């Protein structure tokens, strides 16, 4: 067994040596490099360390968050290194880094003010230290590219030389941040700091954690959600080669062995008797019936938005259009399956894992192990995909529970793909009924929607809903941008036993699809061009309108297309940003959809890293095309039917259409980027499919509706 001292050496080597972003902030501090503040460390050789508190999972925020600090710091970007803020230091230092969760497309939106302030504060302290050293007024000194210059005398010094003195100064209480027009680092397509390690195969994901003396655990949870372990006979596998222990816990069984394959195979042979609980007979058909009943129910329905009198306006309408839309449960299907490595020794807990919320991982480890927060160390590994799945701490809880049964031994819990697919927190299933009344000119005078869907906030977070409304369930309906005088939006919360959670873009992954397709149905009924129809309903000042116009222009909306090629369009707000998509495609007689191009416009307010935004939009297209063509989780006998990529297909490289990103930032606000890109894709494609085939797609996935991707 390793001693704690050895262990520390090992774990810092694991963290520090391998890649950017996996080193310990506390280690740097021990080396004596002056920390100007929690976010900025300047080394004597002029290298600058900028700390990053949230998680990097390919969304690029580690780079763009550092750009915000660097902008105000006036440092030389080529000398910047980004590293994770440490959760243990976070606890000891009074939560100096604020929120550590990388969720809700909010890294930039929620931290931009304090990150820019941190950069400015550090710069002022460095300049002040230099001015004091020279005995000149600090107002005569300025900083640029790590160099501080005294204007009148032309004397120069560097950040590294004055850092030690600056670290001793008191932070200025008020700082003035730059005007957007003066930005030099924000808005630049700076290369992502995490990419070199990724493309060189040096990135270390949670699954790659290696700790000396480590053993491996395979876990099985009850296949029926809500079920428990009834009994099992551990002796059946105890003598198998390499098997060390069988750990029964209330809701799962873990087999621990000297390597993971042996653990997994032993688990496969282990006769576990489950108590399936009351959900053992539930099927997708039953769940759909439950939602359908919600559409017609007179009770347990709340009004999410009421404007004017939709019922009365409907009765006086020249034409009434009705439609029902459906979206299925979806799994996150991160390439890296869930898992975590944990060690409990001498009252200290170490966890190595990929998490979207390192602080939540820290809290979970402390609570499950029963140790004080100060005794927990979370070693943050790169995430092999997050998409909302890795905000949950279920796998960390399991790793710590198994480690608790084997004190002193590091245990790596790793799920199989099958376990991962069948024990997710799924994107909610949703059934929505729309009804609109058009006046004689074809314009909508009344709009009614009723959403029958589970509530993530009520069932996963178990938070109280304000007036019974889950904002995610009615997102983009209750706050739709179109000028329609009479609107009534209802929400029938129906919670089947399938656990739901935050799947990238959440409510905006499904509701804009429905809304923007239904708007298209109205335009079609009115005999109007879907782009012009939307424009006539969008106020001149709306951001949806400006991004719609920019996207339509870039796509040459209205221009002639080759025979058989048709266009579809959509627009929406999501996570504080605005997107529009124009899809161009053809549909063959047998339903093969050949997407010629997607023009994806986005207005994120300020564009911190344009290159990353383009990449996020392209990645969003991959993710959403996969979901809309093949994505579906179905339930039989209480359990998920899909298990691996053979029955839960991903889009392949050759199937990827051309994506042209129209980055049209209008400034003045900070929108999200990780999630908004998905929101307008499905409706634009489905509207183009209608234009090409005359068939409305009111239910996803497309492969269930007779369509294939070319």
């Amino acid at each position: 067994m390793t001693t704690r001292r050895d262990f520390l050496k090992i774990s810092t080597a694991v963290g520090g040596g391998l890649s950017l972003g996996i080193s310990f902030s506390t280690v740097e501090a021990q080396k004596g490099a002056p920390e100007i503040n929690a976010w900025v460390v300047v080394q004597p050789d002029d290298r600058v360390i900028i700390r990053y508190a949230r998680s990097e999972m390919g969304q690029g925020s580690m780079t763009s968050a550092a750009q915000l600090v660097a902008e105000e710091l006036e440092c030389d970007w080529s000398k910047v290194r980004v590293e994770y803020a440490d959760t243990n230091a976070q606890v000891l230092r009074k939560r100096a880094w604020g929120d550590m969760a990388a969720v809700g497309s909010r890294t930039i939106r929620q931290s931009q003010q304090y990150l820019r302030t941190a950069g400015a504060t550090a710069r002022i302290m460095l300049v002040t230290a230099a001015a004091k050293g020279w005995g000149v007024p600090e107002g005569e000194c300025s900083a640029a590219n790590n160099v501080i210059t005294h204007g009148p005398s032309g004397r120069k010094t560097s950040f590294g030389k004055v850092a030690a003195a600056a670290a001793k100064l008191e932070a200025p209480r008020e700082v003035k941040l730059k005007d957007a027009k003066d930005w030099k680092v924000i808005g630049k397509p700076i290369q992502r700091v995490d990419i070199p390690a990724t493309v060189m195969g040096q990135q270390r994901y949670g699954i790659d954690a290696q700790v000396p003396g480590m053993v491996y655990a395979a876990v099985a949870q009850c296949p029926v959600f809500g079920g428990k372990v009834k009994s099992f006979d551990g002796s059946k596998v105890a003598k198998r080669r390499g098997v060390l222990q069988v750990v029964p816990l209330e809701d799962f069984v873990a087999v621990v062995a000297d390597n993971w394959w042996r653990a997994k195979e032993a688990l496969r042979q282990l006769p576990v008797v489950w108590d399936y609980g009351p959900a053992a007979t539930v099927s997708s058909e039953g769940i759909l019936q439950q939602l359908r009943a919600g559409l017609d129910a007179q009770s347990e329905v709340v009004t999410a938005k009421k404007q004017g009198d939709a019922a009365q306006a409907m009765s006086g309408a020249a034409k009434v259009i009705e439609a029902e839309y459906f979206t299925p449960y979806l799994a996150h299907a991160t390439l890296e399956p869930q898992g975590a490595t944990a060690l409990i020794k001498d009252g200290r807990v170490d966890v190595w894992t990929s998490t979207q919320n390192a602080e939540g991982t820290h809290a979970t480890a402390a609570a499950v192990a029963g140790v004080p927060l100060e005794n927990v160390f979370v070693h943050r590994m790169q995430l092999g995909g997050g998409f909302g799945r890795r905000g949950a701490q279920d796998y960390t809880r399991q790793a710590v529970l198994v480690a608790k049964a084997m004190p002193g031994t590091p245990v790596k819990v790793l799920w199989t793909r099958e376990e991962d697919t069948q024990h997710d927190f799924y994107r909610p299933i949703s059934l929505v009924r729309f009804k609109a009344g058009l006046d004689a000119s074809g314009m909508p005078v009344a709009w009614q929607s009723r959403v029958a869907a589970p509530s993530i906030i009520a069932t996963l977070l178990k938070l109280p809903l304000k007036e019974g409304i889950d904002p995610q369930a009615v997102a983009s309906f209750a706050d739709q941008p179109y000028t329609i005088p009479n609107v009534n939006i209802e929400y029938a919360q129906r919670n089947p036993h399938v656990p739901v959670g935050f799947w990238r873009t959440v409510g905006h992954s499904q509701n804009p699809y429905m809304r923007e397709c239904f708007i298209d149905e109205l335009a079609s009924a009115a005999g109007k061009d879907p782009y012009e129809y939307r424009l006539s309903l969008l106020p001149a000042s709306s951001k949806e309108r400006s991004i719609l116009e920019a996207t339509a222009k870039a796509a040459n909306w209205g221009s002639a297309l080759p025979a058989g090629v048709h266009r579809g369009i959509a627009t929406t707000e999501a996570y504080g940003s605005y997107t529009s998509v124009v899809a161009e495609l053809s549909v063959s007689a047998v339903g093969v959809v050949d997407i010629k191009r997607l023009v994806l416009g986005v207005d994120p307010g300020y564009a911190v890293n344009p290159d990353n935004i383009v990449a996020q939009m392209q990645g969003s297209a991959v993710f959403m095309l996969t979901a809309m063509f093949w994505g579906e989780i179905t339930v039989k006998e209480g359990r998920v039917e899909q298990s691996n990529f053979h029955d839960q297909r991903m889009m392949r490289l050759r199937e990827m259409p051309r994506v042209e990103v129209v980055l049209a930032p209008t400034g003045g606000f900070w929108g999200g980027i990780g999630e908004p890109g998905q929101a307008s894709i499905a409706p634009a494609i489905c509207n183009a499919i209608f234009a090409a085939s005359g068939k409305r797609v009111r239910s996803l996935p497309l492969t269930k509706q007779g369509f294939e991707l070319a």
Partner: protein
Amino acid sequence: MKRRAFLATVVGLPLVAQAQSRDEYFSSFNPDALAKSVTGGVAARRGRVKLELPLLADNGNSVPVKIAVQSPMTPADHVRSIRLLSERNPEREMAVFHLGPRAGVAEISSRVRLAGSQRVVALAEMSGGSWWMETADVVVTLSACIDGTG
């Protein structure tokens, strides 16, 4: 580290940003006023009550809580009830524990559900009619792809 020191900034934004202090965060929350709504207007004094909650919780579904009240627990001088109040839960009064001298010690250990980061108030009602209180803050680190919670 002292709990108080940790709590001083735990609920605000990072220090460097000169962000919200704890007082600002809780500016709309007055534990004394909340206590008075339960005590029938009697001001509760600080002390005698010890309230333990984790400083950080991954979620608010089941947060362990311990309350201990200094009292001889005799027929003449004992704790009559212990109440747990929440700043943010829809039910402000989360729990009432009735005690008597036969309880021996005035200690409660339980779990509560919390609707997000907040301050929790523990109140003890003594047989002599006096009220005592203690508060504790807990940060719930919600991993939610939404705005406006947590």
